[in-house]
């Protein structure tokens, strides 16, 4: 453990008390990306401990290590000073760790009572004791303040109710450590109050509560300790009382932008729109958004995950129906084609969609690079046309994109993430579309490949194309985009020029819908 971390810990926790949980030099990688890098800090019994940071900072990964979902690659987790290692969620639960996962884990075909006690059913004569299960479930639901019958099947509940039951499930386990992963994402205000009371009860009962959130209000309201993670590294652990809103935001974003990004092009003199979106409602009951993307421009839809950026770009791509409004794609000759009907119509209108999950949605994994890119070239050809792929063009494109592969016959599944991403984008470049809708252009890609992908996208718009991207990385928006539209609760709350935007302003708009206090003062 580093000296600094030691010092911080002893400052945070009065000497003499062994921490309930201590993380020591935890490192975890997924493929080539390091999700957590030498993270060390501790949590004390009887405290509510916030784990916060930007999207992708490693918060959920860290808690999943504690919950036994997967083991750390190196480093150790100590319980009451003793090193422990869980090989399954069941083992972590048996050791007293209860987790309320961000994604719902309720089983839709079981009743509330069955869900609450799955994995540790009360038993009588070796059989599941259903009356005891119902009784105990009723007690737990009352404690949490959920007015639902234990015999109701969970699949019949509304989403907000399911989240409350998920929280009750965490409370039902008699655990010393309770982890909440973004528990309020789907809760309404009364639900949040119920959760706050429950957490306070758990704190008083001497439990250690880890509370993952990037909602600053909740952190200041509920948590007495705060740990900030950034890019998988530990930034600071300190009492929440020592922090202000602004101090916390700058801890979350504090990082220098490397020269990762290409120069922005000259502002297009005549803003010739390639894409115009008008009063577009992407999800039921959502807000309407209107914006345009001009040729020569990269526009980013920024915001916290789950606030509707994904729905907007997917509805524009025609993957999901939109509720109201419309979107037009303008060709160079000025003719307009409507967007958002179906994915086939989108491609026919000359708009390419690059999905975030290249493994399952984007690439034909077992096929070769040549075939993956060639499928883009064949766009618009008749089904019965001879499928001849111009290999010279594929090779030229591979060279231009700097795809590192043996040759164009190598299967895409054997490429690294960055090279796969290039092939996916290359397919659309080869197809001759002039508007790209891109989700997470560089997810799971190393820094070198990132820079190359940014360069490719910039070259694409410089040649008269237009791109709309979503990304969970703020720095990507700020470094790459000409304009950033910040989405909060489905609506555009601000539009910033890429040059002027800082992580603080973008985060502030995304989190609380207004500029940071320093700027407004």
């Amino acid at each position, binding site marked *: 453990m580093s000296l600094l971390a030691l010092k911080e810990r002893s400052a945070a926790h009065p000497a003499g008390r062994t921490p309930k949980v201590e993380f020591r030099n935890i490192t975890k990688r997924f493929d080539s990306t390091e999700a957590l890098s030498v993270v060390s800090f501790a949590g004390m019994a009887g405290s509510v401990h916030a784990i916060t940071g930007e999207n992708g900072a490693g918060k959920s990964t860290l808690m999943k290590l504690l919950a036994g979902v997967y083991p750390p690659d190196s480093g150790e987790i100590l319980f009451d000073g003793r090193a422990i290692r869980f090989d399954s969620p069941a083992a972590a639960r048996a050791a007293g760790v209860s*987790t309320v996962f961000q994604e719902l884990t309720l*089983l839709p075909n079981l009743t509330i009572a069955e869900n609450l006690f799955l994995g540790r*059913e009360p038993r009588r004569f070796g059989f599941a004791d259903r009356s005891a299960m119902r009784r105990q479930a009723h007690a737990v639901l009352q404690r949490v303040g959920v007015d639902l019958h234990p015999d109701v099947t969970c699949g*019949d509940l509304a989403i907000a109710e399911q989240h409350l039951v998920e929280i009750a*499930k965490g409370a039902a386990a008699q655990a010393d450590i309770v982890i909440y992963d973004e528990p309020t994402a789907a809760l309404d205000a009364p639900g949040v109050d119920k959760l706050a009371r429950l957490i306070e009860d758990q704190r008083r009962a001497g439990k250690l509560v880890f509370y993952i959130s990037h909602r600053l209000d909740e952190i200041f309201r509920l948590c007495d300790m705060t740990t900030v993670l950034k890019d998988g590294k530990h930034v600071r652990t300190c009492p929440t009382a020592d922090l202000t809103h602004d101090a916390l935001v700058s801890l979350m974003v504090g990082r220098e932008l490397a020269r990762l990004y290409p120069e922005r092009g000259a502002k297009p003199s005549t803003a010739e729109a390639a894409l115009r979106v008008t009063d577009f409602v992407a999800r039921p009951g959502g807000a309407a958004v209107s914006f345009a993307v001009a040729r020569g421009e990269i526009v980013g839809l920024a915001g916290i995950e789950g606030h509707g950026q994904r729905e907007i770009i997917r509805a524009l791509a025609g993957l999901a129906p939109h509720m109201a409004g419309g979107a037009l794609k303008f060709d160079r000759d000025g003719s307009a084609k409507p967007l958002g009907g179906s994915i086939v119509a989108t491609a026919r209108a000359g708009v390419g969609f690059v999905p975030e999950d290249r493994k399952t949605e984007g690439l034909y994994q077992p096929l070769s690079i040549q075939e993956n890119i060639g499928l883009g070239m064949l766009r618009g050809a008749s089904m019965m046309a001879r499928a001849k792929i111009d290999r010279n063009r594929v090779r030229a494109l591979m060279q231009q994109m700097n795809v590192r592969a043996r040759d164009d016959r190598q299967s895409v599944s054997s490429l690294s993430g960055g090279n796969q991403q290039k092939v996916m984008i290359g397919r659309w470049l080869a197809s001759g579309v002039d508007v790209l809708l891109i989700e997470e252009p560089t997810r799971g890609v190393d820094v070198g490949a990132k820079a190359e992908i940014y360069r490719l996208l910039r070259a694409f718009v410089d040649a008269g194309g237009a791109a709309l991207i979503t990304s969970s990385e703020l720095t990507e928006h700020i470094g790459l985009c000409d304009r950033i539209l910040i989405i909060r609760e489905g609506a555009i709350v601000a539009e910033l020029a890429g040059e002027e935007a800082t992580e603080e302003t973008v985060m502030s708009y995304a989190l609380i819908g207004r500029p940071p206090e320093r700027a407004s003062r």
Partner: protein
Amino acid sequence: MSAVSVRRLGRTGLGLVSLGLPLAMFVLLSARAPDFFGLQNIANVNSQITALLIVALGQLVVALIGGIDISVGSVVSLTSVLLVLVDPALAVPAALGAACAIGLANGIGVAFFNVHPLIMTLATMTFVQGLALLFVSSAGGTAPAAVVMLARASFGGFPAAFFWCVLAIGVVSIILYKSRFGLRVFAIGANAQSAALSGAGVSGPRIACYILCSLAGAVAGIYLTGRIATGDPTLGQAFGLDSVTAIALGGVQLSGGVGSVAGAVLGTITLGLIANGMNLLGVSPFFHAVVTGCLLLGAISLQRRKVIGV
């Protein structure tokens, strides 16, 4: 409370079709076939469907975790062969032991090596059928006297088949509805990942389900061999797929998590009544298969698919 109990029907998969089909068949046959209600005919139907019922109950358990086991028919055949080959005192334990081994192999292949259940059980089906034919190339031999007695005797006016059915339904009901294991079966079938995150082991119950299904095949094989009193290496050939037909007619969903013992029973009765009715009405047995196929497609199309997790 009544609203609650109606809602709970959701995971049984029982619906208008699975309940109405056997009933409609019943009404139709009692109107058109005068012999249908004879005590003799009812007993006939019972003994005809007993083996399929037992196999279908095993298939149900596997379907609930989202699997399928088409090797169970071969297990019936192998059991029949073992019963006439092995020393009478050891014949039944040998058959049950072989079934356990086959189920274990299926379960390990699916749970640990991620082989698709259809491929895994297709492989064991082929292997086990070959094994049975290697042991005995055609029907012959004598089944142990005790087995014959258990399958053919009647008690208090009820044929043995009736007790075999009651026992099988009782055992599987207790496993699925009363045990902790049963609850996990439904949970894993709905979403294995969520079940694992909730602290319910996944691989163990999966393997156990395949073993249970193979054991059901062995029990059905014992019953059938007792009835015909001789060994037959192709005795179970139809059961692998017929049992899937039966549970599908009974509203069990092959994607897992939705189904019931009642559904498996009703589906089997439907199939039994079709066969029996066509027989009574003098329809060609080949036409029987045509009708079953159409009925299966029609019934499944009419059942609103209970989408889990959306």
